[in-house]
């Protein structure tokens, strides 16, 4: 139990995950953030990317957006778009990559959309490897 804290992932329709863990890496808006036990209280939000939960074994989750709160050694991740990487459909990834690429080439989208799309694309490429 040493150096462990609780991580909870909650989506609007269910509790996705609740477990003890040593380390969690989350894709924050301004970069990857690693969280260990006794982190100071924190509130932030997510960009598209992968959440990595490291305990005895490592598990990864894909998210598009979400809100994160850390307090009292309890990491709370609220997101409506969470997917365990194991359940990710490998065949659809290349379609998704193409879709995001097309979106990036569209000159009309705003900077924020472009930012999100580029991270989505990076994440999909990472998954695809």
């Amino acid at each position, binding site marked *: 139990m040493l150096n462990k804290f609780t991580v909870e992932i909650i989506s609007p329709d269910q509790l996705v995950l609740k477990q003890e863990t040593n380390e969690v890496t989350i894709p924050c808006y301004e970069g990857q953030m690693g969280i260990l036990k006794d982190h100071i209280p924190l*509130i932030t939000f997510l960009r598209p990317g992968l959440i990595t939960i490291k305990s005895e074994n490592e598990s990864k989750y894909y998210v598009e957006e979400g809100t994160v709160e850390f307090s009292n050694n309890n990491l709370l991740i609220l997101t409506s778009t969470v997917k365990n990487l194991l359940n990710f459909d490998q065949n659809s990834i290349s379609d998704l990559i193409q879709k995001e690429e097309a979106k990036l080439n569209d000159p009309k989208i705003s900077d924020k959309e472009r930012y999100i799309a580029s991270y989505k694309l990076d994440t999909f490429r990472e998954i695809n490897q």
Partner: protein
Amino acid sequence: MPSLDDLKKRIKSVKSTQKITKAMKMVAAAKLRKAQESAEKGRPYSQKMQNIILNLTKSINDLQNAPKLLVGTGEDKKYLCVVLTADRGLCGGFNSNICKLAKTNFKKILGEGKELNIITVGSKGHDQIKREYGKYVIKKFSFKDKKNISFKEADEVGKEIISLFNQTKFDKCIIFYNNFKNVITQIPQAQQIIPAETKNLKEGNEQNFSYEFEPDEDEILEDLLPKNISTQVFKALLENAASEQGSRMTAMDNATRNAGDLVDKLTIDYNRSRQASITKELIEIISGAESL
């Protein structure tokens, strides 16, 4: 006195009605379990979201410049009422309870000379409200063809609310729905979602952390508040779905019981009048034989 044949037909029709209500009750019971489960599963999300917002609100010092979704426009003139009802009837007082509550509020709002806009979700509520307040209804949603309510539907409603808010179409937004307490009790509720109600939450939560924010409070709030609107709508939709099934189950249970009572009563009537006609015939035969 209805004829024997009429009574027989009547009994048959009541019996088949009973069969229908019984089947509906069983369907509702099965659906209720599922709806209740998802309502309960959905609760942590909205609760935690509220908590985060509360913690954020506490650490904002400059309330004047806080996002409008949180503190409101500072005015109190235009109201948006979102009435959430079911798409199907035959569920007891479910729909009319919500509409009744909504209508008393409408009356109050209009009585104070304020502007009223209505969004209805669910066709049954729309039917009831358009009779009196049809001209105030600006938009109606119906998820009749959807089997299960998902966050996507709630998001649709939430986005509509936010876009109306950004066009400064209203200052305050209230949603009406039934809160699922248990199978027999559902409480119609009016909840104000814009500006966010944080007063009653403040007392229960005495913990106070100094949070680190990244990027900063305002940006997080701006990201979080629109999400919170959708979450609240979603919570209301889930509560509503569970309430609807619960309400329908009790209504259909009562209907089945009433139909049983009615069948018993009609059967007694039927037997009595059959006996009466037999007795009558016997008397006729006997008196005919005596006169010979």
